[in-house]
């Protein structure tokens, strides 16, 4: 049917609602709602304002890092070094304050700067030298962690002033400070990915990088930006974490990449690139936090929850593969 003959139809509202719910995001939203209901009936410690807000506070670090990770995985890349960048930023924060005497107020820039440099380092080699992202960020995972260990000499920094602690534990209008930050960052990221030229380019790169290049999109610049963004967010998350726990240790952030990647993949982003959304990642982050909360309320030690996260990652990919095959992803 030639288009000239009848008006171009937009899919009806009913059809749009249907595709929304059959997507991975839709399935997850349902699971999240079910999880909330389940948890609130199983224990009365769950559905308290205190608990909810605290959980929101706890998931900020993963949430912030999962945002750029979404962009990166959509382009078909990956960033394994976020946990190590997090740790290095924390160490640099501590070092600059304790050893270099920098006023604590300025250390935020140190953390962000460290993250930015780490991200740019990754991005430069990935874009200009052509090192595959997996390999580059695996190497920097080791390098950045090693630097953190070396600079800190495995000593931890303590004795942060009270106001610093309040930053990480404080509230604005009853909601933890960093949660506001996370919400704002999520909204901005979602808008950028869904509505801007940059966002469109990210999807194009993930589906057909060559085609994107031939269409005049600035592929190299955009790729550099997302890795820089990833490093910076890791630095920011590190800062928030240090202020929240009021110490600095070189092993902080270990395993952060696992949580972030699991959240992104759970949220419907294909590990092969080309599809995904911030909304999905957000639901993924929330779900994982709910999971952790549920497990700890059930008496399971914090360390042990990573078992579940690991299983979730593998299951999420299987789910993703299955859904993609069912919806006949572009043959």
């Amino acid at each position, binding site marked *: 049917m030639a*288009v000239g003959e009848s008006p171009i139809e*937009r*899919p009806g509202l009913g059809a749009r609602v249907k595709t929304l719910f059959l997507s991975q995001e839709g399935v997850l939203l349902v699971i999240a709602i079910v999880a909330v209901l389940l948890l609130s009936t199983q224990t009365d410690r769950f559905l308290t304002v205190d608990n909810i807000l605290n959980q929101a506070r706890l998931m900020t670090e993963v949430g912030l890092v999962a945002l750029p990770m979404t962009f990166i995985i959509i382009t078909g890349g990956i960033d394994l070094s976020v946990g190590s960048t997090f740790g290095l930023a924390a160490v640099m924060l501590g070092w600059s304050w304790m050893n270099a005497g920098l006023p604590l107020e300025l250390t935020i820039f140190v953390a962000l700067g460290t993250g930015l440099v780490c991200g740019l380092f990754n991005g430069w080699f990935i874009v200009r030298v052509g090192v595959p992202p997996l390999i580059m960020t695996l190497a920097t995972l080791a390098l950045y962690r090693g630097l953190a260990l070396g600079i800190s000499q495995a000593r931890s920094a303590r004795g942060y002033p009270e106001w610093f602690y309040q930053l990480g534990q404080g509230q604005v209008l009853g909601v933890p400070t960093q949660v506001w930050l996370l919400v704002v960052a999520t909204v901005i990221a979602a808008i950028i990915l869904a509505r801007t030229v940059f966002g*469109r380019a990210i999807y*194009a790169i993930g*589906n*057909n990088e060559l*085609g994107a290049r*031939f269409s005049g999109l600035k592929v190299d610049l955009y790729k550099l930006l997302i890795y820089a963004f990833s490093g910076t967010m890791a630095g920011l998350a590190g800062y928030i974490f240090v202020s929240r726990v009021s110490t600095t240790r070189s092993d902080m952030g270990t395993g952060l990449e696992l949580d972030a990647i699991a959240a992104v993949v759970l949220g419907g982003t294909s590990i092969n690139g080309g599809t995904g959304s911030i909304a999905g990642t957000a639901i993924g982050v929330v779900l994982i936090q709910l999971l952790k909360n549920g497990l700890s309320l059930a008496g399971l030690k914090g360390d042990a929850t990573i078992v579940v996260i690991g299983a979730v990652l593998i299951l999420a990919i299987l789910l993703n593969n299955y859904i993609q095959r069912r919806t006949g992803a572009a043959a």
Partner: protein
Amino acid sequence: MNRFSAWASRPYDRSKPVSEIQPILVLTHITKQFPGVKALDDVHFEMRPGEVHALLGENGAGKSTLIKIVSGVYRPDAGEIRIDGRPVTFNSPHEAQAQGIATIYQELSLYPELTVAENVFMGHAPRTRLGTVDWAAMRRQAKDILASLEIYDLDVNRKVGTLTVGNRQRVEIAKALSLNARVLIMDEPTAALTEADVERLFHSVRLLRERGVGIIYISHRLQEVFQIADRVTVLRDGQYVDTRPVSETTEDDLINMMVGRTIDNLFPKLPAEIGDVVLEVQDVYRRPSVRGVSLTLRAGEIVGLAGLVGAGRSELAQVIFGLTPADSGQVRVNGQVVNIRHPGQAMQLGIAYVPEDRGTQGLVRQMRVRENLSMAVLRSLVSGIFVNRKAERELAQHSIRQLNIRAYSTEQIVNKLSGGNQQKVVVGKWLASAPRVLIMDEPTRGIDVGAKAEIHRLMSELAQRGMAILMISSELPEIIGMSDRVLVMRQGRIVAEYPRAEATQENIGAAMMSDVAVNNNNHATEQAEMPERAAV
């Protein structure tokens, strides 16, 4: 008739007359259909032992589909394959290999980090009595195979990754011999070779022939056919044209068979006023494909750029468009010298490039029609920092109407469209950037006749409105029908230029394929009588 073909056409077993030799491989009534296009229609092919059988045809004639059927990559929809008289079916390339059919593709399938000897024998290495890999035997046998091809200067212990293309090809030939191949398919083997390498390749081919191996030789270079082949089969538009002994044919005959067809009104060329020069290319080099190209393009004119695969046309276009940098040379747009380093820059200057491979270069197939149509001009559809969906949709609708793209909505995934409509999307994407210079690389390849006509009509209209169009095409009727001027490119240089009135299939074909120097006034038939042919 040249001095090579007399020597070259001696049969394998000289005691038997040619007509009595049992063919190894016979294909009859082969038909193969792909969505939207019939690649092969009732094609015949036959291969004798100890013969070099050339397979000729333009791009899209069906050659590569045919050899993929022979090598087991595709199964024919109809027709029969017989080996030594027995009918066979190949369910996989491996089965074809087991029957003695080996293929050397342009993208060689070798392991760069492993040695020559191991590459030759991977998967079927000689074993010791204990069942372990016998390296000494492997090296020895590899050397023997190379020696049988009279190759004595290739060290079997070298990593393949360190070899030149010519040597890698010899490794592939040795690999085929190690599998006791009886039929060897060579697809454009000389495309990336130096002259010396080509000579060595021919030497190997002749040795193989003496051993009784049958060789299917695909090449666009006609002089090679006369140098090395015994028989030649020509395909055109998926159909079988003829098979002849090389000694009984001439270049002109072959060209005619390959391209000759009636030119109907597929080419509604409207008269257009030709204006000022908008694009000037001077002495541009981009090694190894572009070696000193100069051309000019005027507003309102359609310049056809003809040439064979590997002539360097797409590479030239990509240099002009800023996808790859030039080694040297100058480009001028509207008289101003420019240094285009990025497609974005080219677009700003009013240049657009519709690439050759719409699937991998022209489109992001998993995305929607709307998203593809707007991809080049996203920046201009922005309000604030957001993409203005409404403006984007309107642009898409406009393009759909303008080009008569058959899609049921702007939201359809491009992958679901037919080839012709996909091509229209690519063209539409670039028209949205309102270019003054439009470079179209194989604009109607692989699309149906109706869509072809539409695109040609569009090109005419655009030219009438003052656009300068550089049309790269391997289809001579299209070149002849649509161009105001025809440029012929071969091996990185422009070797001929014909105004519309003098552009004939013979002239252009000869300039594309023959080695002889051509200028506007000569006819190819005169050159056919020249006794010397330069070695490739």
